């Protein structure tokens, strides 16, 4: 007798400026009064699906397909129409109770405002509406209700959020990672509270990486990998007789099943996240000359040079010093203008792009310098410099979120957290070069110019940095132009090498 409440059909999410499609043709339906759990590892695109449902995808992402919810297509709703659904039909239960509650309002009032303004209850009836809700969650309205969020424990704050979830008239609730960062006991009670919502007739869309949550909630589930749904069905069916090898692998990887890592072959056989194979950076017919002051003569660096790099590709740029290697890097980054020719960023001609478009694309095209120390203010600890980048890209992030982002990035680069508190001149050459790489990575670049990144380093450190760069290019699907005067290095690291020779500008090009 259950009816479909939410129908997602052929939902794809793509990022035009990054030339990526992190979610590909996902379809599923959620039945009224049931839980639907979307399971997948980090980066599988499950959170993006939830964001598309709630309409809070970030601006750089576009959703295609259909998300039908009570007769209307959520993707095509205007902001205002969507806002009318919030709280009344659709609700997203936030998972950070610390930042989701207003610090200067008594928690009771934060629940009461839903009754007052959304359900239209009279002020005098509020207490009688709140009392059963609070007691149902083992909270005392007269004591706990009068406190401010900072006076409550984490668990209590979660229960207040749940009270809000129960108070809103919305019948459909989206929950993103309800058990993230919780210990086993807390996990159990979090899941129990979610079943509490189900008991009251709400419908849940739960996003998690934890198969146990799906088992506890029941209903239906889908397993996502690489932006696609690999298997879906009722929870019993999927967990007890999984058909897809990846699902079997996921079940086997759970601690209680022996933590067997998923077979590499299975992963390799699966469809990888759709990559758009277009060039992310392209220069066409580039010419550049310099006027030599002394001889008042034009010196041609290169004429009619074309270069194009795909995401994930490392291209080397080789030539003797003074042949315009760094200049070419700067031209591709839009830092210098060529005498003639065009540079395309993700297919956008940057000399013709509007200010807004350029501003949007700018952070994605980055450079690391020969002298990495110069990219850090000398009298500021590197931590602060890196925090500033996070703040610049995501102005809303608080201090802890910044720190976390910075820490996870530098860990990727095998840097120790304690180094963050040093000043640039207290770091070794290899360390500071890795920090400058971190600085760039915090912008999530699609293209990186590495201008002689290792020329001042000894061989062992150079090997580390170059290997790291190769790994990052592959992992982050980032195009790299590696500038060097060391041909052997380029031959190891690069898929292609572009040769510049100013004596014979015509012979420039791919080798």
């Amino acid at each position, binding site marked *: 007798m259950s009816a479909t409440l939410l129908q997602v059909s052929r939902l794809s999410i793509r990022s035009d400026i990054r030339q990526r499609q992190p979610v590909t043709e996902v379809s599923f339906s959620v039945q009224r009064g049931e839980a639907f759990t979307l399971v997948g590892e980090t980066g599988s695109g499950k959170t993006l699906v939830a964001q598309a449902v*709630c309409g809070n995808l970030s601006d750089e992402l576009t959703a295609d397909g259909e998300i039908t919810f009570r007769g209307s297509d959520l993707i095509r709703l205007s902001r205002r129409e969507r*806002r009318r659904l*919030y*709280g*009344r039909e659709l*609700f*997203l239960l*936030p998972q*950070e109770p610390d*930042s*989701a*509650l*207003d*610090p*200067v*309002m008594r928690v009771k009032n934060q629940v009461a*405002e*839903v009754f007052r*303004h*959304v359900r239209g209850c009279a002020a005098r009836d509020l207490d009688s509406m709140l009392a059963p809700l609070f007691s149902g969650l083992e909270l005392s309205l007269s004591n706990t209700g009068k406190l*401010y969020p*900072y*006076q409550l424990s984490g668990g209590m704050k979660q229960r207040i959020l749940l009270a*809000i979830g129960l108070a*809103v*008239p*919305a019948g459909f609730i989206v929950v993103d990672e309800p058990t993230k960062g919780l210990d086993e006991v807390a996990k159990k009670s979090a899941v129990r509270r979610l079943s509490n919502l189900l008991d009251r007739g709400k419908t849940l869309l739960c996003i998690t990486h934890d198969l146990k949550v799906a088992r506890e909630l029941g209903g239906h589930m889908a397993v996502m990998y690489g932006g696609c749904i690999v298997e879906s069905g009722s929870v019993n069916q999927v967990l007890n007789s999984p058909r897809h090898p990846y699902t079997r692998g996921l079940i086997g990887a759970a601690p209680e099943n022996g933590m067997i890592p998923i077979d590499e072959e299975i992963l390799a056989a699966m469809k990888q996240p759709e990559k758009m194979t277009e060039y992310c950076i392209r220069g066409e017919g580039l010419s550049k000359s310099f006027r030599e002051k002394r001889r008042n003569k034009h010196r041609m660096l290169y004429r009619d040079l074309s270069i194009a790099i795909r995401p994930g590709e490392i291209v080397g740029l080789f030539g003797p010093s003074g042949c315009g290697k760094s200049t070419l890097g700067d031209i591709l980054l839009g830092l210098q203008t060529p005498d003639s020719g065009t540079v395309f960023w993700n297919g956008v001609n940057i000399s013709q792009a509007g200010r807004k478009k350029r501003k949007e694309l700018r952070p994605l095209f980055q450079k690391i310098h020969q002298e990495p120390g110069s990219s850090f203010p000398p009298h500021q600890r590197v931590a602060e410099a890196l925090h500033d980048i996070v703040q610049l890209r995501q*102005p*809303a992030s608080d201090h802890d979120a910044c720190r976390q982002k910075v820490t996870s990035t530098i860990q990727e680069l095998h840097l120790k957290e304690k180094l963050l508190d040093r000043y640039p001149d207290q770091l070794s050459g290899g360390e500071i070069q890795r920090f400058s790489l971190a600085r760039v990575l915090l912008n999530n670049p699609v293209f990186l110019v590495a201008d002689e990144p290792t020329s001042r380093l000894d061989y062992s450190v150079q090997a580390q940095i170059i290997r790291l760069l190769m790994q990052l290019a592959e992992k982050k699907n980032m195009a790299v132009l590696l500038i060097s005067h060391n041909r052997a290095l380029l031959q190891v690291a690069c898929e292609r090498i572009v040769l510049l020779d100013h004596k014979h500008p015509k012979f420039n090009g791919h080798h």
Partner: protein
Amino acid sequence: MEQVVRSICRHLFQGISVALIVATLGFVAVNLTRVDTALDVAIARYSEDLTDAVVVEQVRREEGLDQPLAVQYCQWGARIFTFDLGRSLVSREDVKDLLIHHFYYTFLLAVTAIAVSLLIALPWGVLCGVYPGGIVDNVSSMICSALVSVPQFVIGLLLILYLSIKLHWLPVAGFFSPAHLVLPAITLGIGLAAVSSRVIATSLVEVRSTLFYRFGAMKGLSPFTVFTAHGIRNSAIPVITYVGVQAAHLLDGVVVVETLFAWPGIGKLLLDSVLARDIPVIQGACLMIGLLYVTVNITVDLICFVLDPCRRNPPTTS
């Protein structure tokens, strides 16, 4: 509650010590200038023509200026515990009465100026904070920089030129009717509003980007309700702290504006007494300004304690 009391006590202690130190420095500075104080006082009292060596010696004896500096300072120090600030060397008026009289006008001007600035800054700042980066925000940010960089006397003179001299709407200077208050208050208010509107806008942008603000929409509240319920109080805290700083600055007298409009405030009194080397008035005014700072700081703290529950009893976690 304990936090409140502790903070008030700390401010009181700091403020009083600062006031005493400033008053002492005022005394030292005047005496360091190696000019004959008695001569200056006699000139200020009897005009330059009537002042000769006899008069100067008489003033010196009468006011105890012939005694060693340490004795003069100690006498002043002993008197303030009986709330006696002495008499003006020039007009022989009681310093306390003089300060109260001038403070009344300073207070009047300060309160009106703050009111004017908030009247301008609140709608302006909220508009910029709600649509950050929009055309209103960008244009007003430019206007603000312009207003901040223009000296106050330029704004004041322009206002006098247009509103008083050309249009005859308002009196040029003086302090005889409420109409006299308008021009100096607007002159000060415009400059203050330029900065506080930016503070309001920044603070609002910050609050609007928090998760709890966006969660308000998710709860189903209308944008207006989210703003009134979660926006105002959260963004008010930095704004009030800043307005407190402005108020303290206004209360210790705004010499330029008071002089321009012949407004008899503390700033003008202080300037006149420095020129006449009227030491008791200088010391009294310094003491009073110090105490006013404490009062304003305590008031701001109390308002913040009311607005921000976390300050009442900050969590012990680091």
